[in-house]
């Protein structure tokens, strides 16, 4: 087990504080200090700060295991999942926490990614559109190429944490840009042989500046994605596909 950290080290957390529901409240950074423990993650640290120092501190965690995507925040300048960020990673012991930009702020480090993702799903119709609705669940299932199934799963590993959106310069400049998450999901359905949509259908939603032609290829999405999803490859793939539809 390699969980050693500098024992007894005092960590300094500078945390963004702002409650948009309190009239006149001003955004500010607040400093907290905490003794580091072996194996400490930002999840453990934030919970201890809330329990022992400031019970009003707002942040989101659900699985605390890197599976659900709820705890994305900006840690020392980089958007990432707080639950699996070990404090030992920061040799100076100084950790700055900011909420993810690009989403509605609920308060402090908590942002409304759920609302964003649901709206995106509705806008881009991010669900399987089966070729036939007339499928009998009592009969043997339709076979599928094992390699296709494996590839679909690889693209499906997105946890909707919002990191790619917050790390995207285009998204920061143009609010209507669908972002890597939307395109990754469309690429997943485009690849799925069970989906009845044609390229024209996808062109209709992402064949423009808000979609594949708006991406500036700055790689923020791919560099920061906690699931290492191949965003750029998929965006490039979709872009070629969309270009084909124009011919």
């Amino acid at each position, binding site marked *: 087990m390699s969980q050693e950290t500098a024992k007894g080290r005092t960590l300094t957390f500078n945390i963004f504080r702002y*409650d948009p529901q309190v009239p006149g409240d001003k955004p500010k950074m607040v400093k907290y200090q905490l003794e580091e423990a072996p194996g400490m993650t930002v999840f453990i640290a934030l919970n201890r700060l809330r329990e022992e120092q400031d019970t009003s501190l707002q942040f989101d965690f659900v699985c605390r295991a890197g599976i659900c995507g709820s705890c994305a925040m900006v840690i020392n300048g980089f958007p990432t999942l707080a639950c699996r960020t070990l404090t030992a990673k920061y040799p100076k012991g100084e950790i700055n926490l900011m909420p993810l930009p690009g989403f509605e702020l609920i308060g402090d480090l908590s942002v409304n990614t759920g609302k964003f993702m649901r709206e995106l799903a509705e806008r881009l119709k991010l669900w399987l559109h089966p070729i036939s609705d007339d499928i009998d*669940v009592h009969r*043997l299932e339709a076979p599928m190429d094992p390699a296709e199934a494996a590839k679909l799963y690889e693209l499906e590993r997105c946890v909707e944490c919002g990191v790619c959106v917050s790390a995207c310069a285009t998204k920061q400049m143009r609010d209507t840009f669908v972002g890597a998450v939307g395109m990754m999901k469309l690429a997943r359905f485009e690849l799925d042989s069970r989906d009845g949509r044609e390229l024209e259908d996808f062109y209709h939603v992402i064949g423009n500046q808000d979609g594949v032609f708006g991406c500036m290829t700055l790689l923020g999405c791919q560099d920061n994605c906690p699931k290492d999803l191949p965003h750029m490859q998929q965006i490039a793939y979709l872009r070629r596909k969309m270009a084909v539809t124009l011919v």
Partner: protein
Amino acid sequence: MKLIYTDSLVIGAGLAGLRVAIASKERGLDTVVLSLIPAKRSHSAAAQGGMQASLGNTVKGMGDDEDVHFQDTVKGSDWGCDQDVARMFAHCAPKAVRELANWGVPWTRVTAGPRQVVVNAEKVTIEEAESAHGLINARDFGGTKKWRTCYTADGTGHSLLYAVDNKAISMDIPVHERMEALSLIHDGTRCHGVVARCLITGELHAYVAKSTTIATGGYGRIYEVSTNAIICEGVGQALALETGVAKLGNMEAVQFHPTAIVPVGILTTEGCRGDGGLLRDKDGHRFMPDYEPEKKELASRDVVSRRMTEHMRKGKGVDSPYGPHLWLDITLLGRKHVETNLREVKEICENFLGIDPAKDWIPVRPTQHYSMGGIRTDKTGQSPQLKGLFSVGEAACWDMHGFNRLGGNSLAETVVGGMIIGKYVADFCQDNTLEINTGLVETFVDKVRSEIDELVEGQGTESPFVIRKEMERIMMDYVGIFRNGPELEKAVAELQELLKRSRVIGLKCKKRHANPELVEALRVKRMIKVALTVASGAAARTESRGAHAREDFPQRNDKDWLNRTLSSWPDENSLSPELEYEQLDVMKMELPPGYRGYGIDNAIAHPDTAKREQEISEILAQLGTDADRHQQQNALMPFDVPESLKPKNERLSEMLENLSAGEIAK
């Protein structure tokens, strides 16, 4: 206060809740789902291993069917389950898997030809049939006779939840996120909805509905170390308990998973052992064959957890600052397997332990994992005490798991249970009218409002965080893997003290809107009551069955304890739940209690067991040899499922047989 009306109200947006919502919406009913968090973040996403369904596509699953799945489930439950429900479940599981494929789940598929797998620490080659190519694959899981667990790599829960939530979005089912239900609205016989609090604005909403379905998952977070997400706090069970009318079933049945990583308690899937991973002690010795020579690492979860604990008590654990642990060794599976089929496990090992599991052993120990108990329902998922209140998934005691759940049956229960119970919920909504009594609604809203007033403005001094930590410690220390009378009595007494203290909580943060301390205070008050049902039930049950293991009563006692514990809380000022028991009728069982297949057979037999066995052989003899397995089953224990789910499941083996029979006929 906002008043919202709907037909079908669902609390909880995990797989079970969403599946019920879909069933309601399919029937044209107005449907609303409440959730603490965005639906796709639900704990269902964390299930890695897979879901059981007897498709029988792979060579290691050949010969599998509903009968084998049923028997595994009943034995797994240590005969504590409802056999009717286990039958309904086994019958519908293949349908659910196939339905999910139609909704977009990229199930891992069978590749025809030879492939290398690890079985009992040895590499063996199995050959998949040409005819099975592209059909849904299955892997090995503990406690099952056949390879039956369908999966997508080790992200099965994730891909299922995404497919089902996408389906719900496509059907325009609203999910009211960051909305916490705090009280059921009821008149003592019928449930009319809930009072909920918006976690952003703090506003109270009354949702009035024909049916209310609680699908809030388990109560693992009453324990200090749990594999559960931090939202699995038992508030759904508390909602039912606090009606004073609805009852909870088998709350003491709490499962520990053998292989959570140390210290944080994050799970490594049973798929690790299913795919051939081994457990080793501090000397590197593979110890499971010493205890369970037949099933080894793939014995039932409760058995493996206890054997690990026994072994560590012998001093064979690896010392660590967090207490002793053992090793899970998946290095023998090879890097390619680890990086494709056990990818989540690899990520967890890298991020939380800084190790490479293709090369290093993983530190593990048994950790609280699953709640077999929950809101007691009948076969249709409805509370027998409170009409219009349904429950499904881990929140419920439906009761297909009895006293121990088999791996791969929880994910299956969410979607299969949701599929079946969803239809009964829709039936109920169609057969009943919406009853709105605004006076009744206001009474319940006022009660929650004054509870919040008291917390924010009252003179209380206790910290909700401190109380919660105390509760978690008590449950961990005294209501764990091995239990005994004196410790359980201590747990009950200490929890009662804590319950008193929870009545005088005072808050430092006085906000009425988004206020994490207020959220914690409202929850912990309810969680302690749930913890008391677990501890009290365990103290009263003087036998060992499934995951409930009493050191002072090591025998499974069918003579006195073949029953289900029911707990209720009729007097809200009381410090303990009321316990009563619901008998299981051996004379109605398809599979009377027998030897489970682990260790020595020390069960105290039920007097009816021999009688029922005799009766079964007579029924079968009468049917004659011409009867097929469906006719035999129906003669022994007929069961019912909604009409549209009744057809038989087609299987590859039967198709091939029919095909060859057809050729012969030609």
